[in-house]
């Protein structure tokens, strides 16, 4: 069997001497959209920083199609809850930023990014500043920027939670379609069980309260396709202790 697109092997995470998580093993198969559900403060962002190579985990390895990329940034794309668009750049330049950073000529970068604006539902916003866009549109622009980082494995940390309820559902359905269309493999972290069921084919439950001395771990895994949405919800609620 081929190696998964992205795989974490028994990661140990810490904030300095402070233990956050232990034995975290998760993977995303080729072309899959998997989710991790966890409550606030369980160390989700720390886990993603480790997967993105921004921080070296205290133990364990991160593999990209079998290649060890532990502590190496830039090999998987990463999108955060906040859109983090640069306020001083137009939407077009924001989207093209990963290309410009990589040394692509500015005009070529703009042309490549501009050609994708319609696909991402952003047509007409090229010359606007980020402050002129709604939250949903800003997330679309951030997603286009993430896509132009040119890695086909994407990590998304609570990408829709800052949006209003209607935009959130709309955007995540659109996003799931885009992941399929673009052939990406994605791992999404969310605290929203319904969002995880709506998006993911497989859902990991990551739970613990490191601030209270309970080290977080992966406490379970649910296959939504084989279990069905309702059964998956019951199992997830049970694993999170919200029965």
């Amino acid at each position, binding site marked *: 069997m081929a190696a998964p697109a992205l795989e974490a092997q028994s990661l140990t995470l810490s904030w300095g001497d402070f233990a956050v998580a232990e034995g975290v093993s998760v993977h995303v198969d080729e072309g899959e959209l998997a989710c991790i559900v966890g409550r606030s403060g369980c160390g989700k962002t720390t886990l993603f920083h480790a997967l993105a190579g*921004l921080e070296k985990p205290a133990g364990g390895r991160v593999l990209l199609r079998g290649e060890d990329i532990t502590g190496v940034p*830039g090999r998987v794309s990463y999108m*955060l809850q906040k859109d*983090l668009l640069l*306020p001083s750049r137009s939407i077009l330049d924001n989207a093209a*930023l990963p290309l410009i950073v990589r040394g692509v000529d500015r005009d070529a970068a703009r042309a490549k990014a501009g050609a994708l604006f319609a696909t991402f539902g952003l047509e007409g916003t090229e010359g606007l500043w*980020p402050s*002129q866009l709604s939250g949903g549109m800003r997330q679309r622009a951030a997603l286009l920027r993430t896509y132009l980082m040119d890695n086909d494995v994407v990590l998304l940390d609570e990408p829709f939670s800052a949006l209003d309820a209607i935009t959130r559902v709309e955007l995540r359905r659109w996003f799931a379609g885009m992941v399929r269309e673009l052939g990406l493999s994605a791992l999404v972290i969310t605290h929203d069980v319904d969002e995880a069921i709506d998006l993911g084919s497989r859902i990991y439950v990551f739970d613990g309260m490191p601030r209270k001395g309970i080290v977080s771990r992966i406490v379970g895994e649910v296959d939504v396709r084989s279990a069905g949405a309702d059964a998956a919800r019951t199992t997830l609620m049970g694993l999170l202790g919200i029965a």
Partner: protein
Amino acid sequence: MRLPSKQKTVPAIAVAAVLAVWQAACSLGLIPAFMLPSPIAVVSALVSDFPLIWSHTVTTLLEAGLGLAIGVVLGFILAVLMDRYQTFRLAIQPLITLSQTVPTIAIAPLLVLWLGYGILPKVVLIVLTTFFPVAVSLADGFASVDRDIIDLMRTMNASNLQIFVYAKLPAAAEQFFSGLKISATYAIVSAVIAEWLGGMSGLGVYMTRVRKSFSYDKMFASILVISALSLGLMRLIGLLERVCLPWKQIERKEHGKIIAS
């Protein structure tokens, strides 16, 4: 539309009222003319002595411009080094703060003593007073950048220089211009103080001369010019800010829309 017009008329009326009271006090003979010239006397002194005042103004502006330019460059370099090297910041911060507690008026004579009566001591004094607001506002601005943006750029494998240019510099831009406005007023005032203590030309030199001849109307005329220079310089920097930070204009407008709705 009532609010903006009120915001313009009230300050204008306040200034006009102060001038009217001043003029009345002089015209009614409440204050002797040799002690406090009336506003009209000041303006007529400015008009009659304008060619001479203008030639001195050019010197002061030249010194202030040169000193401010060097001060801004020095402040920028210090802020970048403080942002880049923590040890440097810890070492330099108390020193530059201390440097600002030394009164300008106390070191100016020393500078004249060390560096003579030419333009050099003036420029040095202006540099010493103007680098500080720029360095502090820029260093604070660099530090105010969202850590998540830096993390994001690291996942793009951005170099430190790219992170600086794309994230830190724009984040500091607004604070930089606030600091620059303060530095600009310091530049004019410092130039005049340095000229008081010795020199061939400049508004400070003109002031000492007219004071010695008890021409207080001309003295006030030069104060008027100094205030106008400071205001003009601040206005110029305000315009530069609008040109350099077009997105801030839009953000303010968008913010206004949200408030209004």
